[in-house]
Structures are given as C-alpha cells and as structure tokens.
C-alpha cells in the first residue's frame, strides 16, 4: 500500500521533469530558460513565505475560534471571513499596495491574506466536527484542555485541515503571478511581459511553469498529509 504511493509519487516527479526538459531544450520556450530559473526561484520564495505564514496563523486562528470562549461569536466571525473570500485576489493585492507601497513586503502580505481564509475555515470546521463524545471521553479520563487539543482534536481534524491547506496553496500559487503588478517579481514577469509584447513563447514559459509548480506543490502536500495523518482518521479509500 505505502510502497505504491511512493512509487507513483516518484514516477510523477520523473514525468514532470522529463516534460520540462523537452520544453526547455527542444522548443522555442527554451530561449527563456535562464529567466524561468531565476524568476521561478523568486516565485517559490514568495509562495513559501506567504503560505507558511498563512498556515501558522490560519491554524492558530482557526483553533482559537473553535475554543469555548469564542463559542458565541465564532459563527459570526466565520461569516465575515466567508464574505471576504468573495473579494477578488487582485483587489487584495491592490489594497495591500495602497497601504504598503510596492515591492516584496506588500506582495507577501497580499498573498498571505488571500491564502489565510481557507485554512482558518477548514481548521475551525475540522476541530468543530470532532464528535462531542470523544471530547467527553478525553475529559473523563483526565486530559487537560491543552492535551485534548494537541493529542485528540488536532490529530482528528488533520484531514480537514490539510484539505484546507491544499485549497489555500492552489489559490496562493495561482495568485502569485499577479504580484508582478505590484513589483513582487516571480513568474508573472514572464507572463505579463509576454502578453504586453505579444511574444507567445515568453508567456507560455511563465504560464506552464506556474501550472507545473502548482501541481507539484499540491502533490507534495498530499504526500506529506498521508504521512502526518493517522490511518485511523483517513477516509476509507485512501
């Protein structure tokens, strides 16, 4: 079972690498090889920093909202979050720029905010959906609230939390090209320049690489989730 999962993961990585190789060495896109590597790195840094921050804060805020002290207000707060999801990511970046100027910092902040909400939402829902009798059993055998949170609630909510993280990362990777518009760099540079100058291979070099990054990151997070989430919590066909 477990072996085959790794085999499929590595063959997937191999396939992607081969695809990129052909793209870079046997097509017109290959002309932008240097740019793809340089901007790709920038892109990855933006994704990594903003999404790690979002995961840390998102899980923390979600967990906080699921505590008893927030019982009365949590639903209302979640409603506000749900409405904020409808704000277009481009608008979030524009807002970030109007407060923080242009460059790296406003890009990170904008991406962070766009990524945060699905993580908060799934963490909250995941923790709330742990059956009350499981919590009663935990209390009844003498676990402290902290022990219950870390040993029972979070491990049992991990599957839902991870699906939130995957959704958030997909949004994050997809939004990152836009930060070029507020001076954040990344693969958006190739895409927007390609559009403006009407150079198709340049546009594709940025777009295809962004797409592949999104797929690889999603697959990687999935593999991590199967390692972290207890077999007892995984749905049957996983």
């Amino acid at each position, binding site marked *: 079972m477990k072996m085959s999962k790794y085999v499929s993961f590595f063959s997937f990585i191999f396939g992607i690498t081969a695809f990129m190789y052909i793209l870079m060495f046997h097509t017109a896109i290959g002309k932008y090889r240097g740019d793809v590597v340089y901007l790709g790195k920038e892109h990855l840094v933006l994704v990594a920093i903003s999404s790690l921050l979002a995961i840390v804060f998102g899980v923390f805020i979600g967990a906080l909202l699921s505590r008893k002290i927030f019982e009365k207000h949590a639903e209302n707060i979640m409603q506000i979050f749900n409405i904020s999801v409808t704000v277009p990511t481009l608008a979030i970046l524009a807002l970030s720029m109007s407060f923080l100027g242009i460059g790296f910092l406003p890009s990170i902040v904008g991406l962070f905010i766009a990524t945060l909400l699905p993580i908060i939402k799934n963490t909250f829902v995941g923790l709330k959906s742990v059956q009350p009798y499981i919590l*009663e*059993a*935990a*209390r*009844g055998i*003498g676990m402290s609230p902290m*022990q219950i949170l870390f040993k*029972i609630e979070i491990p049992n909510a991990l599957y839902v939390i991870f699906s939130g993280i995957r959704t958030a990362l997909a949004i994050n990777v997809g939004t990152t090209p836009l930060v070029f518009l507020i001076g954040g760099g990344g693969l958006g540079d190739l895409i927007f320049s390609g559009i403006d100058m009407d150079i198709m291979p340049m546009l594709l070099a940025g777009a295809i690489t962004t797409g592949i990054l999104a797929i690889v990151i999603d697959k990687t997070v999935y593999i991590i989730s199967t390692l972290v989430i207890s077999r007892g919590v995984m749905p049957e066909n996983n």
Partner: protein
Amino acid sequence: MIELKNLCKIFKTGNKSIVAAENISMRVKEGEICVLLGPSGCGKTTTLKMINKIIEPTSGEIFVNGKNVTNVDNIVLRRKIGYVIQQIGLFPNLTVKGNISIVPKMLHWDKERIDRRAEELMEMISLDKSYLSMYPKELSGGQQQRIGVARALAANPPVMLMDEPFGAIDPINREIIQDEFLRLQKKIKKTIIMVSHDITEAIKMADKIAIFKEGVLQQFDTPDNILAHPGNSFVENFVGKDRTLKRLNLYSVVDVMNKTPFIFNDNDNVCDAIKIMHENSLASVFIVDKDKKPVGRLVLKDVKNLKKNDGKCINYMIELKSMIKIEENLRNISSQMYLHSKSSFVCVDNDDKIVGEISQDGISNFLNATYKKEPKGYENV
C-alpha cells in the same frame, strides 16, 4: 467506596432553574456495583457525572475511598476514576494500544510498564494481542466496547463510572459482554457506579440499585429488596407487575435446592424406597447409580401396590429426561418446569453427580420468605 452526601445540581437557563438532582445521598461499598436506574431525565446521568465533575455539583460532598474529593483538582481526580460512556469514545487517531495506554502515559509510567500493562489488559478483556496495532474503526462494536473498558481500567483505578456502557450493543452481544464483565469484576473487584435505564440489566449487574425520579432518589437497596419491597408506587410501577418473576433472575439453583434429598441406589430394594416415601409423604424419590449419577425417578403411585421382594429400584423407575446444573438461574428452571410439566428436578454438579433437588414448592417458599420478615422498605443511605 463512594459516598455521596446531599448532592444537588441546579441548572439555570435564563431566569428558570431546573433541579436535576436533589439531595442525593448514598454509599456504595468497596467492590460493589451500584446501578443508577430511572426513566430519561430523572437525574441519574447527572448524578454519575458529578462524581468525576464532568458536571460541577451545585452543593454537597463526594467521598471516594473515604477522602473528600470536592476540592480535589478535576484532572487529578479523573485520572484515578475509570470512565466508560455509551458511545465508548475511543480516539480514532490512536491505535488500540494508544487508546489504552493514554492514562498510564499521562501518569508518566515507563515504557516497559506501559507495554506490559497493555498486554495484561488485552488478556483481561480476552482479545488477542494482535489487536493492539489496529485502529478503532477497524473493530466491531463489541470489540470497541471491550477496549473502552480496558482504557478505563488501564491505570488500575479503584473506582469506575459507567454511563450506559452496554447501551449501544445489540442484544445478543450485550448479554455476552455483560457476562464477561461480571466475570472480570469478580477478579478485579472495583467499586462501580453504572447508569442504566434497563431494569433487566440492573437486576443482572447490580449489588445495589438506586432508582431515580425527577432528580430525587426514590429507593436505594439490593435488587431483591427493590423487587420484593418497592418503597413507593413509582418504584413499584417502574420495576413492573412481573417483579416476582424478575426476582427469579437473582438466584441460582444452588441457593434454593434441597441439599439433602432422599435418594436410593439402583440396586436397593424397591420396598425400602416405598416405605421411606410413605413415612415422609413423598410422591417420588431419585435413583442414582454407583457413581452417584442420577439415573431415574421412582414414583410412589406406580409402585405402591407392590409386595415384598419385588426386586431392585432400577426395574420400576422412570428414566430421567432432564437434569439441572446448579449454577442455572431460577428463571430458566421455572421455564423448564412449565415446559416439561414437572414440579421437581434433580440437581447435579459439573461432574453430573447428584447434589440436590429443586421443586416448585421450594422456589415458592424461598421467594415468600422475605415477605414473612419485617419489610425493610426504604433503606436511606
């Protein structure tokens, strides 16, 4: 030992207050099972949950093994009290071993001791060690229930609280698990308070029954006294009109049988037997072989016209169709009496040797004995 003194719980919702438990006082002796019984909403679960402070009492005191625990820290207290709930509540993210070693881990036992204890517990609940690495969702309901009990027993707490522990199991498995639990309890002798709404279960499991109605303790007594002498009309209705039949469940053959019946060997002269039957006005006697195993019944009206020297008992007896093991309960025996239209049976031990005789009259007299004594009635505390 668990003692409750004037325990009260008042829930406040808005400006209304609901009394869930009113002045509950009772004492459960060490090694006893006490069943809290009543219709839903009667305060039995509230009372149970106040003991480990899942529900904080409004007033009153609780003593566990003589120590006042009213001001003991909740978490410290709960680790010393085993707790089993109806939905079992095994932790899905942990293996069976993770589940049953969670309390010892919190008490900082070393790894070796935890491993040893885990294996010991699996043996106690008669499950194979290979289950230790499985997850709760891979087990059947009955197996999960056993693991739930094992988890509660893990750190060897002196007392256990059980909230309808067998409620979620199908009736056939419930019987099996109840029997298993009683066998286990005989070995471990914990002080147990258990909530139930099933009078049959209560009669089977309890040393003491506490009946509740609307937050008030109605009667606290042994199952037999509850059934024989209900303290008020509520208790009488609750235990049912067939309460005398329910009492049959409480006793086994060995409690009631005549331990010195008249018996004859198969080679004895039939005339001796007739003489004894006449002298003691018996309708029949049992015939045994040389190993003391019962083989037949000699009925007086079949043989009373026989003259002297008419031979051995074995030639005149009727062969026995059924024998009764002494650990059978009286309800089963009564059922067999109706089935075979017999008013008496021979009782044998596990080697099939005769040890006594049980008769309908014997059972009636036994059940009636309690009514001739002064009724004990409401035993408070």
